[in-house]
């Protein structure tokens, strides 16, 4: 699992690569927590290179969305592959997070 972080305008873009599961989630959580404590308000998680996600990964996303929401921020996600998209649909995450086709779409009106 690798995370690449880039700031575009005021949005913190986090690009995921690999898997977000039981073993990789703690590391991702640590990095995202650091971003939030550094003042990140709006965050875009780009899943273009994310192979799959399990509920341990969903837990990080839920935690992040709650943290950002508490300070009027927002978490958006984009570029989900078919499997990740299915996990989002099955878990109901598609309806609680903004899901976009790609980074450009996600950045519109962010």
């Amino acid at each position: 699992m690798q995370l690449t972080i880039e700031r575009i305008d005021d949005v913190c873009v986090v690009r995921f690569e690999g898997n977000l599961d039981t073993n990789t989630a703690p590391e991702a959580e640590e990095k995202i927590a650091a971003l939030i404590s550094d003042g990140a308000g709006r965050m875009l998680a780009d899943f273009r290179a994310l192979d799959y996600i399990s509920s341990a990964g969903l837990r990080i996303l839920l935690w992040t969305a709650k943290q950002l929401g508490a300070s009027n921020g927002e978490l958006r996600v984009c570029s989900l592959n078919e499997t990740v998209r299915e996990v989002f649909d099955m878990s109901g995450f598609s309806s609680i997070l903004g899901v976009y086709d790609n980074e450009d779409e996600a950045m519109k009106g962010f």
Partner: protein
Amino acid sequence: MIPLGALSFLGIDSVVASRSKARMACELICGDRVAAARFGTAVSVLARGLRSSCDSGQIELALENRGAKWVIVLTFPAFKLESVPEALAEFIEFQGSHAPGEAIATAYFGIHGACASDERTVAEVRAVLLQRSRDELMSDLTASNAELRKSIEDLQRTTTAKERMEGELTIGRDIQMSMLPEDFDAYSHRTEFLIHAALHPAREVGGDFYDFFLIGEERLCICVGDVSGKGVPAALFMAMTKTLIKSRATNDVSPASILTHVNDELGHSNDSCMFVTVWLGILDLNTGKLRFTNAGHNPPFLLHEEDPPRRLAELHGPIVAAVPGMTYGESEQEMTRGDRLLVYTDGITEAMNEKGHLYGEEPLVDCLKGGPAAVKGMVDDVVSRVWEFQGKAEQADDITVMALSFAGASDPATMGVLEFRIASRLEEIAVVLERFQEFAADNGVEDKVRRTTAMAFDELLNNVISYAFVDGPDDAEHSIGVRFDLTPTRLVLTVEDEGVPFNPFAHVSPDTSLPIAERKIGGLGIHLVESMMDETHYTRKIDRNIVTVVKFLNQGEGPIESE
């Protein structure tokens, strides 16, 4: 002689009524109340006497003119002498027999003075005699009411009892039929075989049964049995046998060992001396090897290519439940692509027509020779020919037929198995997933299947490691067995642990429609596995939890025949 009418002397009410009727009739005729009273008493005494002497009958009254004198003539059945003498004293004359049943007797009551024999008086007398006394009417009414009530009650009672019995038998039949697998498409995703069966009990419930189920991923267990006798006792024994076989088969892959065990169980508490014939086979779906045990059952037929149907004639021991402590044997038979097997009960071969002839084995063989190739067609054809033979004769025994067709052993080149153990620590999941990714890449598993399965693996192992051991996760004492099976049609993951009994799928699905602030993550992982994998199974085997999840592959051969 002018006939006046008759008085019944049966029943206490009739005797009482006869006195007043006779008195009134006599008074109408002679106007002498004293004579009428004497006549009434005499008639009632006669009636009482006759009642004790005769089974049925009546006293007929007539008026006769004898010159200047009139008499009332009483005609009645002959009687035992001792029963009426005091009555006879009132009569001026008596003729006839004292022997019951021989003849009729006649007694004459003399009338002194004038006698009214005019039409009007005679009509009045007749009306009096015809009249049913209030008591008689009342008693008739009461009697018929009571009779009616009783017959209604009887009817209700028998109807209720019969309905209840019929209702219970219908329920029994439903329960019994529901014990038999009737969904022949349940394994339609398994391209290795097709199966079909039919069971027609001779009565509401019966003693035949069939069963088929998978043991693990690679073995198909099929069995057909026939309990001695019919009806409810046979049905109960059948239920026991079928249940014992299935519960044993989940932990045993040898037909001989399964039947040896079932025979012991049934034989040791078998006061009613029932028994059951069983044919039980276990087919290895990867290799086509069929191991079977025949315990006193009709030998099944194997159909291979164009060869004539061949009996699997081997017998491996006596009927089940008769001799506890027996050890059964087993045989092995290779099945190749397209081979079919027909297992049946003697309800087929011993079906009887109206002339009392038995169906026998030959017509069955003929039927199989030229019959349909599809399993359902085979079963339907066999059964309908038996019906045809039977004609209007009553079905004597339960009829059961089961057909299996095998699509051939899997090509070892398309198969993959990887099995290993890991310590019960969350970090080990990464090891499993790495090996799985390699396995998937080596075997060309498509991306979507690979990703979904990896996700499922993460969830299952996380679940087991977190919950299966009372000591909690990260206890190096425990290990977990992991296995991947790849067949042309399925990717199967198996996770096996020795922890406390724990069924991950026995939980309430999380509410995935809650808003973000209220969402919790618990239970979500298993929900994802259930939603995204095609099959999920949990079994507890002795001291182990075994969780199996399956993802279907969109490749491989289709079924060898279509129904």
